[in-house]
């Protein structure tokens, strides 16, 4: 289907890189217009209860204030829940800003101040006083755990756990080796660098151009059209550059609603940007409690896998992830029981955060596998290799490919795993205990329906267009590579038009789908352009391409030629000139192959190896080395691909050691709501990271052989870190993040 790579597959630097490093790439809040109004949001100071009174009199007196919106004067909007449900909404009643006096979560927007300047808006916002009737919130997952329930309505696209298979309890009871352990993970917040922001450029009562920080311009467009009754043809949403999102931008955020509401009401252009604190009142990776029980026979063959997870959700939506299913497909085991429940807390609805579900579930599974290896007295890598399976027992499906053996082999070799001494606390370096741990990672390689257009112009310029988003991952660049390769032009000759809701339809940028989906649509559109050019060429008098079929011709050096003999062909400019055309454009459409999906399922895989050094006296931990070997099909661009995996590793280290939204359960409020106190790894926390892409040919995962890379980099990392910490200290840590106080406490016990 595709040519042997020339540009595709090369480590091409980001084409948007110079704009970003020079600060000239305009983000959502960086669009200006004379006379534009500015918004500032007042956040709820309680987590649950009711607003008794809002006094805006002092705020209204601030010069420059135009209007102040509360639940008492908010313009009307859609009534039905279905109108408020965005493209990835879970079942339930989505949050509606400023609709009622009821408070559903800490940091809920309760007032919007609109003013002529940003400064006046903020000044006035600080003068709004809100009286509450607070109720006692419940935000502790441990407390609500007994109320956990299986969600009745399933979230679209989220596979519920499979039915139990075999006889897991009996097999567990009768097995030679058994472990059973509980894992706790605290909630996390995404905290991309760019804050959520919306700039609405008002053109008329019906016509708006909206710059929004979102992972899907069309999702944002549909959301505001549904809520405000606008015509999708009159609303353009753009998201040219997105400063990270990690899933937090998959669902429209309240600043979008508020900015559009104010713009329509005031008939002015309006900008609303969140504060960092507000970023903690949104979409988060839910806290979880998981129990994993594993059993193996005397040879280390798995006999039983049982995995139960309870995750937090809000009171108003049943947010769901695929958490436990991974345990049923990771390794060969005929007896499995996987169960998944939710428990409600008085917080905002959780949402997808990089590798949602897998990051959580695989953390527990891969920690448990390490515990089982210890129980058996087996090398943790050997245990995984022993239980390898090239089949999905959950769905009784074949895999499109699984180069996990190569990940294990190449990763272990690069890391030097064979030098590991098995016993905990057996490796030292000065004051430090040294630990080596590993884990496997999994993610589903999916495709979403996507459309694209490709145009070839007589001057040799190529334009690739689709509504897709580049959230910093390299979408612009890989689409340019695909365009350049299809027409044998330098990458500079390709213009990539994305991030605009008027362009061909794609899904949101999430789930590691974009490269496979939009990339394939571009490839198909490019093929269509070639086919059209061939038709035209064959219309020409004495065409040397005669009866050549599309698969027999290629584009080389500006000519359409026979693949077997590039001497035979016609210049593309001549073909276009023969029809008096300046360009030719064709659409392309890609999507999951439903027929194939009945038999096959596709996953990406990783093997992660980690070295930690821990000061024995002080508990200070450093992750000194990480090797991540990835099997993800065809790699379009090893440079942007490596960056994605590096980012995933860093985030995984944060998940293991740092990230935690600290809640005061007395008030239900998140207290460390800034980047000084909500810790992610600093540069100093990151040392040697090595990424290996193993060879994996896959002709089924997607038409271009791509499986996607956005999520797989994080999966397994936190478990590998935890397993390394066990190897270093001899203490098993099951409560994440593993902060220094926990390590110190265990060292005190050893002393």
């Amino acid at each position, binding site marked *: 289907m595709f040519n042997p790579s020339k540009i595709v597959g090369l480590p091409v630097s980001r084409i948007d890189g110079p704009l970003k490093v020079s600060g000239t790439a305009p983000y959502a809040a960086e669009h200006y217009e004379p006379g534009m109004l500015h918004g500032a949001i007042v*956040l709820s*100071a309680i987590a649950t209860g009711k607003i008794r009174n809002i006094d805006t009199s002092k705020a209204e007196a601030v010069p420059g204030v135009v209007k102040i919106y509360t639940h008492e004067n908010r313009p009307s909007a859609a009534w039905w829940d279905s109108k408020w449900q965005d493209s990835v909404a879970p079942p339930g009643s989505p949050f509606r800003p400023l609709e009622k006096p009821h408070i559903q979560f800490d940091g809920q927007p309760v007032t919007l101040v609109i003013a002529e300047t940003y*400064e006046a808006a*903020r*000044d006035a916002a*600080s*003068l709004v006083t809100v009286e509450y009737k607070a109720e006692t919130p419940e935000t502790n997952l441990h407390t609500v755990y007994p109320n956990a329930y299986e969600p009745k309505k399933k979230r679209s696209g989220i596979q519920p756990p499979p039915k139990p298979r075999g006889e897991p309890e009996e097999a567990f009871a009768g097995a030679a080796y058994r472990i059973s352990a509980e894992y706790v993970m605290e909630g996390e917040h995404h905290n991309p660098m760019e804050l959520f922001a919306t700039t609405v450029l008002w053109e008329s009562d019906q016509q708006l151009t909206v710059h929004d920080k979102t992972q899907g311009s069309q999702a944002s467009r549909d959301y505001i059209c549904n809520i405000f009754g606008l015509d999708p043809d009159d609303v353009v949403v753009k998201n040219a550059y997105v400063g990270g999102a990690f899933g937090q931008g998959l669902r429209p955020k309240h600043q979008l609603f508020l900015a559009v509401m104010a713009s329509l009401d005031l008939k002015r252009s309006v900008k609303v940007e969140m504060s960092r*604190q507000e970023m903690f009142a949104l979409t988060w990776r839910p806290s979880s409690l998981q129990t994993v029980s594993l059993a193996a026979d005397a040879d280390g063959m798995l006999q039983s896998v049982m995995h139960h997870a309870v995750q937090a959700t809000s009171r108003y939506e049943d947010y769901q992830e695929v958490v436990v299913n991974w345990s049923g497909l990771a390794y060969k085991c005929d007896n499995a029981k996987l169960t998944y429940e939710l428990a409600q807390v008085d917080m905002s609805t959780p949402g997808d955060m990089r590798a949602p579900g897998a990051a959580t579930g695989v953390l527990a599974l891969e920690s448990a596998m390490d515990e089982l290896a210890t129980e058996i007295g087996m090398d943790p890598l050997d245990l995984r290799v022993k239980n390898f399976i090239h089949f999905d027992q959950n769905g009784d499906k074949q895999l499109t490919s699984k180069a996990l053996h190569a990940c294990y082999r190449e990763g272990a070799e690069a890391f030097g795993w064979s030098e590991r001494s098995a016993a905990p606390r057996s490796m030292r370096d*000065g*004051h*430090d205990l040294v630990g080596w741990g590993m884990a496997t990672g999994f993610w589903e390689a999916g495709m979403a329906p996507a459309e694209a257009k490709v145009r070839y112009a007589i001057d040799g310029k190529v334009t690739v267009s689709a509504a897709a988003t580049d959230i910093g991952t390299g979408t612009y660049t890989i689409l340019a590579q695909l365009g350049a390769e299809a027409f044998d032009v330098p990458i500079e000759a390709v213009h990539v038009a994305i991030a605009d809701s008027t362009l061909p339809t794609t899904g949101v940028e999430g789930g590691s789908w974009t490269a496979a989906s939009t990339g394939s649509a571009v490839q198909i559109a490019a093929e269509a352009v070639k086919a059209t050019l061939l038709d035209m060429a064959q219309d020409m008098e004495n065409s040397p391409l005669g009866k050549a079929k599309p698969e027999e011709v290629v584009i080389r050096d500006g000519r359409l030629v026979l693949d077997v003999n590039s001497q035979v062909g016609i210049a593309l400019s001549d073909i276009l000139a023969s029809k008096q055309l300046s360009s030719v454009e064709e659409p392309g459409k890609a999507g999951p192959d439903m027929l194939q999906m009945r038999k096959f399922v596709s996953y990406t895989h990783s093997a992660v190896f980690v070295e930690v*050094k821990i*000061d024995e*006296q*002080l*508990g*200070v931990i*450093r992750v000194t080395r990480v090797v991540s070997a990835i099997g993800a099909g065809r790699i379009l661009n090893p440079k942007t691909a490596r960056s994605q995996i590096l980012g995933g590793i860093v985030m995984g280290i944060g998940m293991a*050691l*740092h990230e935690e939204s*600290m*809640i*005061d359960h*007395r*008030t239900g*409020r998140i*207290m*460390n*709501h*800034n980047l*000084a*106190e909500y*810790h992610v*790894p*600093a*540069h*100093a*926390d990151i*040392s040697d990271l090595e990424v290996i892409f193993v060879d994996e040919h896959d002709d089924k995962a997607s038409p271009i052989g791509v499986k996607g890379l956005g999520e797989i980099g994080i999966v397994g990392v936190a478990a590998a870190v935890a397993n390394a910490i066990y190897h270093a200290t001899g203490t098993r840590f099951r409560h994440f993040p593993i*902060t*220094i*106080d926990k390590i*110190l*406490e265990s060292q*005190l016990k050893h002393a």
Partner: protein
Amino acid sequence: MKQFSYIRAEDVAGAVAALSADPQARLLAGGTNLVDLMKYDVMSPATVIDINRLPLKDIETLEDGSLRIGALVSNAALAYDPTVIDRFPLLASALLAGASPQLRNAATTGGNLLQRTRCYYFYDPSSPCNKREPGSGCGAIGGVNRIHAILGTSASCIATHPSDMCVALAALDAVVEVEGPDGRRDIPFLDFHRLPGDEPQYDNTLAPDEMVVAIRLHPDHFAANHSYLKIRDRLSYAFALVSVAAAIDMKDGAIVDIRVALGGVAHKPWRNPLAEAECAGKPADEATFRQLAQRLLAGAQGQGGNDFKIPMAERTIIRALTQAASGTPQVQSEKAIR
């Protein structure tokens, strides 16, 4: 963030006069803390007095050999000053343990002394906090308090002072030169910051109309045997859970003079000069260090979330003193602890 008036002072007398005219006004130096706090509506001065043009940017060696550091010397300039590196390496090291290069470029010596606590409840205007709003209560007691104080707390406040630099200055017995309407006075460093008591709104003993103009360091102290060891939640860019400024004057393996100041554990850099004095003549070994650590931590009280700080502090004190005694101070650019 509220609107405010901006005044630019041209000389120290002018700044003091402006402060005297409006004791609620705040001085703006590097702005690394004040501007943040204003954005969070934690501090809302009606007037901000910019003192960045005042001639307080010199580091001078005085006739008696002591060092005088102007209040507006940046943390970066101070940390990389050759005289400071040579004669007061403990101070240089503590500076480099704090914040990030960008912040150190902007933050000043005087401002560092006056930075406010990082207590979550202080930073959150919707939470009760006796320091921010006297009489409103303390949210941290019984709340999220893993970064809070274990020593010198009161029923109204368990906040810590966040500075690294001040911990070294406390160990070095620095002197704070301040100027007010009645002229200049010296405040010994240990008297500059205060414990919260029932008035946690006051971080220090500076009068509302006084400003810091310089810090003085006694001549030649502890250049050979010292260490600044900071333990935090990640390896850089985090405030200390516990930090230790250790300095020893030794002769033939015996202690002549020893100083230990702790950061991250109290409302001020924590020292116990009496316990230090009792070490004189004793061997500079682990047994002595342990005894001193235990004396320093006498009466330490956890709040639930920060109980771990007590054993952490003891172990960190011993390690820092061991590093100091062996002449192998912690190097802030090294990730491993020596």
